[in-house]
């Protein structure tokens, strides 16, 4: 059955069984992944997947389900169960109907690449190219993941929405090691092969690993910090996640009760753009069928908007920002507006500071306040009088999201789309320059 037929059948069946509103997404994806470590492939993974997700509303109750058992009998049974359950669950306090369609949607460019869709055994060649590049740049070992996906999905709703979209995505992360602790990381990704540069990612990882061999001392304390793009992507993945109204309302955001406040320095401009060419998260419609659009989250450092679906929008007295997520709204592609500095220039601005390429294992002491610490790695260097003098080990970055946002002083010109494993809040991609942030706090373990 065609995806659009399937999603539309689910909607009409749900209505027939007694639902007030139904939305259904039927999707098909094929993904290939190559995991590598110690300069060799560890495993190849191939995923062939059809699934159906259902949102059902009845008497102001809300239920969702998702299944990979897509036989008609099984889906009908699921729908019956959802309708029955609706008579029991309590009414949702911020109930809002689905948006009334139909809508017309933007045509996205550069989000489907046949070469990515058909990528087969030649994926191994990309991996080999990345590994060799890392080794040539001075690493001993390279590890990482290459993933290529093609995805097609169809959304139907009982309020007149019928929309289909297809996209591809390719993503490479390389971590190179020059010894057990001297490591570097490089990333290359996009919806298409347009900006996909596996050798560059491998080479960057290898270069940072080689540079990390020369170790210098650094004490705990506050440093002016240049964040490399992988680290900046982790940071703004958190900012984007905390901008979701669901997390704002759950105690998991430092942006709660701060709309309209200066939460960052005036140099900071962050927005969500679902329509950008080559964006891994690009999509013309959200899960409720609304046409997606650019949404400003932070402008000149002021928190302008949370990300909403219809329900959270109602609760906050706003309009949906077309970021559904039926339950939790989320970002599509986060863009951090770049600045005026060259990468080297940014480093030359630092008298006494650090360059941090990656942030991993971010954990919060207090989500509401924004206090966290993170393991920094994959290129952490001391900067003295505008020059990198050596690698630093053992330091842990321990600071606060709002404090860091407020101390952003400069941004580089060159921005890159980044997606990697340590972006734990789930933003599909973050486009970010490097950032110079003052007064960042670091700690050391006791000897």
């Amino acid at each position, binding site marked *: 059955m065609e995806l659009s037929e399937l999603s539309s059948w689910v909607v009409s069946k749900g209505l027939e069984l007694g639902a007030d509103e139904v939305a259904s997404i039927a999707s098909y994806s094929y993904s290939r992944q190559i995991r590598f*470590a110690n300069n*060799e492939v560890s*495993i190849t993974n*191939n995923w062939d997947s059809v699934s159906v997700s259902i949102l059902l509303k009845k008497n102001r109750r809300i239920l*969702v389900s998702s299944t990979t058992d897509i036989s008609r009998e099984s889906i009908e049974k699921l729908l019956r169960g959802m309708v029955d*359950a609706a008579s029991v669950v*309590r009414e949702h306090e911020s109930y809002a109907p689905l948006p009334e369609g139909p809508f017309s949607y933007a045509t996205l460019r550069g989000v489907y690449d046949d070469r990515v869709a058909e990528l087969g055994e030649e994926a*191994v060649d990309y991996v080999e190219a990345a590994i060799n590049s890392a080794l040539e740049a001075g690493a001993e070992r390279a590890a990482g993941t290459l993933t290529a996906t093609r995805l097609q999905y169809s959304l139907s709703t009982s309020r007149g929405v019928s929309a289909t979209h297809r996209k591809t995505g390719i993503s490479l992360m390389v971590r190179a090691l020059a010894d057990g602790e001297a490591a570097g990381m490089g990333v290359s990704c996009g919806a298409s092969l347009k900006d996909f540069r596996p050798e560059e990612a491998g080479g960057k990882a290898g270069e940072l690993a080689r540079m990390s061999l020369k170790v210098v001392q650094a004490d705990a304390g506050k440093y002016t910090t240049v964040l490399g793009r992988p680290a900046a992507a982790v940071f703004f993945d958190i900012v984007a996640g905390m901008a979701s109204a669901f997390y704002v309302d759950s105690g998991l955001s430092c942006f709660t009760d701060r709309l309209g406040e200066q939460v960052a320095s005036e140099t900071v401009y962050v927005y969500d753009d679902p329509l950008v060419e080559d964006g891994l998260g690009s999509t013309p419609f959200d899960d409720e069928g609304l046409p997606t659009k650019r949404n400003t989250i932070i402008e000149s450092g002021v928190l302008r908007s949370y990300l909403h679906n219809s329900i959270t929008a109602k609760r906050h007295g706003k309009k949906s920002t077309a970021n559904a997520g039926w339950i939790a709204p989320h970002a599509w592609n986060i863009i951090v507006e770049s600045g005026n500095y060259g990468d080297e220039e940014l480093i030359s601005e630092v008298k006494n500071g650090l360059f941090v390429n990656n942030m991993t294992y971010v954990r919060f002491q207090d989500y509401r306040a924004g206090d966290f610490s993170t393991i920094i790695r994959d290129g952490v260097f001391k900067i003295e009088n505008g020059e990198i003098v050596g690698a630093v080990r053992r330091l*842990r970055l321990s600071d606060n999201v709002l404090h860091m946002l407020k101390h952003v002083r400069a941004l580089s010109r060159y921005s890159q789309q980044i997606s990697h494993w340590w972006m734990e809040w789930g933003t599909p991609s973050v486009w970010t320059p490097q950032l110079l942030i003052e007064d960042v706090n670091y700690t050391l*373990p006791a000897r």
Partner: protein
Amino acid sequence: MEELADFAVDFAQRLGVDYAEARFQVDYENLYVLRNGNPEAVSWTRRRGIGIRVMVDGAFGFASVNELEKSRVENCVKEAVSMARAASKTLKQPLKLSEEEAHEDSWKVEPKISFLDVSLEEKMGYLLEIDKRIADEQEIGVKIPQRLMELTEVITEKYFVNSDGAHISSWTPRVYFMAFLTAYEEGRTEQEFVERGEARGWEALKDWNLPELLVERSKLLGRIIREAQPPPRGKVDLVLGSQVVGLIVHESAGHPYEADRIFGREAAQAGESFLKADMLGQRIGSEVVNVADDPTLEHSYGFYLYDDEGVKARRRLLIKDGIINEFLHNRETAARMGIKSNASARANAFDREPIVRMANTFMLPGDHSFEELLEDIRLGVYIKTFGEWNIDDRRYNMRFVGRECYLIENGELKGLVRRPILEVTTPGLYASIDALDGNLSFEAATCGKGDPVQGIPVWHGGPNVRVRGIEVWR
């Protein structure tokens, strides 16, 4: 579906593979979310399909499919084989698997009260009852304006078959509860994260006594805001509570003892290990330190009897009397060390490769009483629960910030202290443990590892433990 899985293995063998396995798995997951007293969602997820793993020319290939027709399964096997073949050219040496007994078995964890026999009304009603109590500022003594609660029930059915002749079926129920609470008073917040989980039916909820537990934890948050004083500075003695000990052994014993991490397979993701394969037999802690990982603990959240490579499960003693004793292995890592697998291979769904995982990791209890641990501490801190936590990617340098903590003075617990910070090394901490009490308890968690990330149910636990001379910061 069993025939389809059997067919997948036969078909793979006809294509000339070195090894093949197929796992048909269904996970029925029901999730109930209550946010600030509002039923945010009732969510049902059904993940169902077949995952096939082959070894061809010494390389691994995995493929999964959920449209369960023969032609799709055939295609799936062909993809796994052809991609593995292409990957084999990158290998300096072919990968190997340890020789293991092929079991034919079927096992089930029987719930006393099935989830299906408990109405949705009762389940939501239970969450609402808890919420009502903790939202009552009069009873709790502080505002808890943000209360996120999740109740999850999962039933996992598996059928595993491999080219060695193993056939294993299993059926496991699991129930899990999570609460994230934010207390707020005069601009100050304190947050608490509570988790419980077991491989049991609905009867587990009764034993957990969640309303009283959440009321107690909520009241405590208010007390921390109002009463907690700065912790002592400098080197002090510590007593670490079971929750903290459990997390410590999970992160600094369990993870670095995963043999695939030791061999570098997770280098690009969570990282490697400060341990090397030839460090077995070396000292890592004091003689009183024993750490085990055991999938066979009855009703444990990480319970299983055979792993996802068909190997029979048993207890693994990672650290024995302070000595590095055993790693966690699958068949690939075991072959590399010339030993048998100790059944640590787990996959969290049909469409994920099995990788080395923990099950239930804990420090073995000792023979002191809790009071005896406190007795000769002149100045110290009892860190009962933790807030922030992380550890470096070789599992060597850990940091945690205490949540519920008390001053210890001259052998007695005194008042609450606020957010003591510890940053210590793994050997430094383990060498400083000098006594343990007999109060073993566990907490549930979902451990993340692999790419794509696989969240797997685990327990971690321990007794209360005394640690001498650790630097504490504010």
